Every structure is written in structure tokens, then in C-alpha cells.
């Protein structure tokens, strides 16, 4: 059924469709409406789940870990400082191979205090062993949560999944969303049945010590699971699109097939860039949907023919002078022998609006580089001119 939904409500509906057993959460702007909607559903008896109110995000994730270890399907949502506060427990969830699904409503990190959108929060967790999916629309947010459980709970994978959606831009904006019928979701997503779980009948120990003679092997297992997750994300998305008629892949290409300038971005910014690309020639957008595991081969293929790649991202790796994704694109160009100039465009930090003019400016810089003119390796879009 098609409904007008805020992104946060679309997520809550997905949680309900997935028959989540345990939700543990702590409110933080702009994620709060997600868990408020879920709390309402539980209170109204629409969703038969245990809703655990906790005193912090650290505890929210810890409660999800405990619940997931018993074989319960678990969900939580957070943002910014909340995600940062979860940091150490994120590694425990992934190290224990628990298929927890979390929505991160992307928001800037303090200081200065800022509640608005950028993606520094989830970028900072890129090595924590969580699969990361960045969505462009509210529809994709709903669909990705459903897909996330299939990916996470697959016995070949068993990794937690973070669905990242831009705070306010998606969470607080209404879009028409097709909410699939429950029976179809039930068929697509069978109940979670882990091979091992905490069960008094068959006792096991989870989260024990891993001494130097074993620790590395467990990390290697996680790395292999990440490789498998790449295939699983594609497989699950392909099946999803057969059943529901919508698919996203690990990335999306938009614009000129043989453009010499290729822009790369994550999340909702793709919408603005598509509008700009519509009015220009010789430029293509690659919207990366899966960031962890990084689909390097797919990105390399999507960059074909490009002489300049402009990476527009809402984060800055301080001390490196460019966005984190940009560095990774440079790395894969090296690995895949792609001879393209990769430029960083830092934009939208702390909720700064990224206007069409900003995207046009980025394209212009890329074209200058393509002509062999000297350009800076990093450009901050829409930055005021102030004395440093």
C-alpha cells in the first residue's frame, strides 16, 4: 500500500513487518521519532516485541547483544553522539557475530554542538565490522531494513548491519512509500533461527577471552564473512527486486554512459546531484549504496572511462585533508590500475545545504582537471570565506 511517510515512520513500519522481538533504544535527535513510533506500536499491541528503555546508547547496544545472543531478532536506532557512545560495543556485536540491525540517522558530531545532518558519525565506525548501507530515499530505508535482516542472519554472514539514512533530510521528510504486505515480507524473511544461541538446555559461552594464539583467526573469520556479505547483499537485493519489484544493487549509476567526469556520493545527496547531471553532458553519477564491505570491483567497473572522479561526501578525515571515501577510491584506483585523477569535495558538514550551484562548481573543477589545469585535490563546497 502506498502511503505518505516520514523516513522515520517508514523505518518503524519495516521493523514491524520484520517481526522484531527486542528493541532497545535511547532517544537522540534526529533518530528519536523512529523509536517513538516503534514504542507506540508496541504499546498499542501492533508489534509483539520487548521494548527496553535504557539509560544510554552504550546500554542499548549491550541489551541488543544480549537479546540477539538468545536468538531474538533485535533492532535499535541512533545518531551521532549516540553512535559514538556505542563505539566499543559495536565491535563486540560484530566480533560475537550477532545479526543486529540498526538504523543510524546520520548527524554531525560535536563540537560545536550540531544536531544537523552529515555522515561523519557512521564514517568513524567504518572499521567496526558492521555492514553499512547508505540509502537515498524513504522507500529505500524501509526496503533496506527488511533486506538487512536477511543479510545479517544468513549463516554464511552473521554480521550486524547499519542502515544509514540522512538525518532530517530523510527522517523528517515525507515521501510516498510503498509498504509491502506482511505476508510477502514473511515469505521473504523467515524467522531468525541461529545455529548457536544462549539456551539453558544446551549451554554455551559467548563473549569469552580470545588469547593471542586464537584472536587473529577470529578476526580473519570476520574479514571472510565481510567478503561473503558482499555477495549476499547482491543476492538478497536481486531476490528482493523479483518479489517486490524494487532493487538497488550495491551502487547506482546515473547519467552519461561514457562520461569523462564521474561523481561519487553516498545517501540522499544523490537526489540533488541527479538534478544537476540531468542538465549537463559528459558527466555520470555513481551513488554508492554499500560502503561496508566496499564493493571495490563494482566501483572500479562503474568508474570506467573516467579521467576525473569527484567524490562528494559529507565527512572530513581530519589530518588527511579529504573525505574518507575519497581516500578509499584512490586506493581502489591503485589496486585496479585505474588512471584517473580523484578529487575530494567536502560538503554538507553540520547540515550545510548542498545546493545545485555547489554541485555545478564541483563538476566545473573536475572539468578543469580533465583539461589538465591545476586544481586543488580537495575543495570545500559552499564554504564561507573567513580568516582561518
Amino acid at each position, binding site marked *: 500500500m502506498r502511503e505518505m511517510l516520514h523516513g522515520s515512520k517508514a523505518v518503524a513500519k519495516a521493523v514491524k513487518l520484520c517481526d522484531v522481538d527486542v528493541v532497545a533504544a535511547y532517544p537522540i535527535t534526529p533518530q528519536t521519532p523512529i523509536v517513538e513510533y516503534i514504542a507506540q506500536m508496541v504499546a498499542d499491541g501492533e508489534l509483539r516485541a520487548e521494548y527496553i528503555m535504557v539509560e544510554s546508547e552504550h546500554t542499548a547496544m549491550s541489551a541488543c547483544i544480549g537479546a540477539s545472543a538468545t536468538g531474538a531478532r533485535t533492532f535499535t536506532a541512533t545518531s551521532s553522539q549516540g553512535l559514538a557512545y556505542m563505539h566499543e560495543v559495536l565491535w563486540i556485536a560484530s566480533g560475537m557475530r550477532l545479526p543486529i540491525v540498526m538504523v543510524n540517522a546520520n548527524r554531525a558530531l560535536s563540537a560545536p554542538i550540531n544536531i544537523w545532518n552529515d555522515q561523519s558519525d557512521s564514517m568513524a565506525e567504518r572499521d567496526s565490522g558492521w555492514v553499512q548501507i547508505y540509502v537515498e530515499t524513504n522507500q529505500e530505508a524501509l526496503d533496506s531494513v527488511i533486506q538487512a535482516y536477511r543479510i545479517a542472519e544468513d549463516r554464511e554472514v552473521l554480521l550486524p548491519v547499519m542502515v544509514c539514512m540522512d538525518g532530517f533530510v530523510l527522517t523528517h521528510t515525507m515521501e510516498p512509500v510503498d509498504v509491502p504486505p506482511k505476508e510477502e515480507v514473511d515469505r521473504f524473511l523467515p524467522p531468525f533461527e541461529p545455529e548457536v544461541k544462549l539456551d539453558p538446555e544446551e549451554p554455551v559461552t559467548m563473549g*569469552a577471552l580470545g588469547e593471542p594464539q*586464537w584472536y587473529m583467526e577470529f578476526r580473519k573469520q570476520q574479514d571472510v564473512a565481510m567478503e561473503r556479505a558482499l555477495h549476499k547483499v547482491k543476492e538478497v537485493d536481486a531476490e528482493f527486486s523479483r518479489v517486490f519489484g524494487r532493487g538497488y544493487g550495491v551502487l547506482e549509476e546515473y547519467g552519461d554512459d561514457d562520461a569523462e567526469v564521474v561523481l561519487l556520493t553516498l545517501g540522499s545527496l544523490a537526489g540533488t546531484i541527479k538534478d544537476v547531471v540531468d542538465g549537463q553532458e559528459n558527466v555520470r553519477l555513481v551513488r554508492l549504496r554499500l560502503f561496508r564491505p566496499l564493493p571495490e570491483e563494482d566501483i572500479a567497473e562503474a568508474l570506467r572511462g573516467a579521467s576525473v572522479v569527484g567524490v562528494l561526501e559529507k565527512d572530513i578525515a581530519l589530518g588527511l585533508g579529504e573525505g574518507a571515501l575519497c581516500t578509499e577510491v584512490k586506493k581502489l584506483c591503485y589496486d585496479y590500475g585505474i588512471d584517473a585523477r580523484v578529487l575530494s569535495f567536502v560538503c554538507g558538514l553540520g547540515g550545510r545545504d548542498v545546493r545545485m550551484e555547489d554541485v555545478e562548481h564541483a563538476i566545473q573543477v573536475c572539468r578543469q582537471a580533465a583539461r589538465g589545469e591545476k586544481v586543488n585535490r580537495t575543495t570545500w563546497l559552499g564554504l564561507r570565506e573567513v580568516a582561518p
Partner: protein
Amino acid sequence: MKPGAVISEPGSTVRNRTGGWRVFRPVFDMKRCIDCGNCWIFCPECCVSRSEEGEYSANLDYCKGCGICANECPTEAISMELEEK
């Protein structure tokens, strides 16, 4: 190797002989002992035992030499002595 380092054999930790960490060993002087049970209850390794005759001793396979028993003993019946191998 189960994913997530799950240990499916309960109680297998006993194979980890923590006694190897010890620098000081507890030596019990039963003449001073008043049978209060403090050493038995406070030992974090649960390795102090009481025999039927009421004699206390530490299982040196697991005693890591922390000295908590000696600290908690009200009559100073336990002394910590340097291991000399």
C-alpha cells in the same frame, strides 16, 4: 572454531591453569587458623578448599598468587611467599 568465538563446551576454562601466573604463593599456618572461612569465600579463583579435618589449602594449579586470602585472613594465618623454581 565457531564464528564469534562461541565456546560450546561448558566448564572448559579449567584447562586454563592460571597457577602459572603466580609470583607469590599462599602458605597456610593451620595453628593460627580460626576456621572463619574468609580465605575460602574471598578467593577470586575459588581455589581455596577446606578438608574434612578443617584444614585450609589452595589448589596451586589455579592459585594466581593475588594475596587476597592473606589480606582477608583475620589472624594472619596465611603468608605470601616468593615462588622459587
